[in-house]
């Protein structure tokens, strides 16, 4: 497993990609979920009872930053199929969407644009935010282990 990490993340491009994914996802999700405010002043804030949501965002961003570069490494260097990539992208999108819709500007925009359908979707994503994020993390964990397994066998053959 350590060899696989070295192979992927000792490569400067993949390391940078991983850091970019982690920092951008973390920032965007924390902004959307109102853990960070930029106006009128920059301020960070974790309301009481929202600790779980905060932890899940950090885990989600971390796993996405781990799994997406590993899958890209597979596709670029080992010329392998893109099937495993879909799991990481899907997990990331599902996890991000969960917190995006609530009473904030994104929820308001969705409801204003799509009316009652938007309101139903927003309500669903808000009501089940924590379970949806957990499912997304589950998808990313499964993708992570299948990618490791796949890289192990493919690297043995290739190197």
């Amino acid at each position, binding site marked *: 497993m350590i060899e696989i990490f070295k192979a992927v993340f000792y490569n400067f491009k993949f390391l940078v990609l991983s850091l970019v994914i982690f920092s951008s996802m973390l920032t965007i999700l924390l902004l959307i979920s109102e853990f960070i405010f930029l106006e*009128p002043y920059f301020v960070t*804030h974790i309301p009481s009872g*929202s600790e779980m949501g905060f932890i899940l965002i950090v885990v989600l961003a971390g796993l996405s930053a781990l799994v997406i570069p590993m899958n890209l490494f597979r596709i670029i260097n080992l010329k392998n199929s893109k099937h495993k990539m879909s799991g990481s992208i899907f997990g990331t999108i599902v996890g991000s969407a969960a917190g995006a819709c609530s*009473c*904030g500007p994104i929820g308001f*925009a969705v409801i204003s644009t799509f009316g009652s359908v938007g309101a139903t979707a927003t309500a669903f994503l808000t009501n089940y935010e924590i379970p949806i994020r957990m499912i997304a993390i589950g998808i990313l964990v499964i993708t992570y282990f299948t990618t490791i397994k796949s890289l192990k066998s493919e690297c043995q053959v290739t190197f």
Partner: protein
Amino acid sequence: MNKKAVIFGILVISLIVVIATSMSSSTDETFDVDMTRTHGSISTALGSPILGDPDAPVTIVEFGDYQCHQCHNWFVDTKPMIMRDYIETGKVNLVFVDFAFLGRDSPKAAQATYCADDQNMYWEYHNSLYTSQESKIDNGWASSERLKAFAFNLNLDMDLFNECLDSEKYSKRVQYNSQQARDNGVRGTPGFFIVDSDYNQTQIGGAQPFSVFQKILDSMI
């Protein structure tokens, strides 16, 4: 002759019914508010009663939805400190204006607060809604039955409250308030405007912490 009298009688009765109906419907739309009340660019005439000293130099206008969990967070985490340091000391007052957009129960919950206001219990009812809020939107916690139960717990006159809520007496009032939010560029709840006596106003989006409010309020007082 008798026929004419009957027709005349029917006409008179119809006229009385029409007048009575129109009078009763206009009564439904009438409420005791100061239609000239504004704070900065916002017409708060149909918003909540003023919480705190009406002559305070600074006003916080809060746009909120009773089903919004971020509004609940602000109500629990930030509002008590604002109450303690600014509202109870007479430095600031607060007006709540409905922005009921999140779910089908949101407008009804907002209407219920004005039904409570008819019995001078607006803020008590407002507080009971936020303290009773459940995390899921439209799961029934703010259904008509539950709204009536909250009123019952506050010992409101239930005949008056039920009649008010069932007739949707304050439907247009809530719609007007929500339109005020849109007209003033509010794009989510909670949204705040802090307005001073010179009509300078600062907008705050989201359930921001006390430190942000403290900084702005101190600069305005």
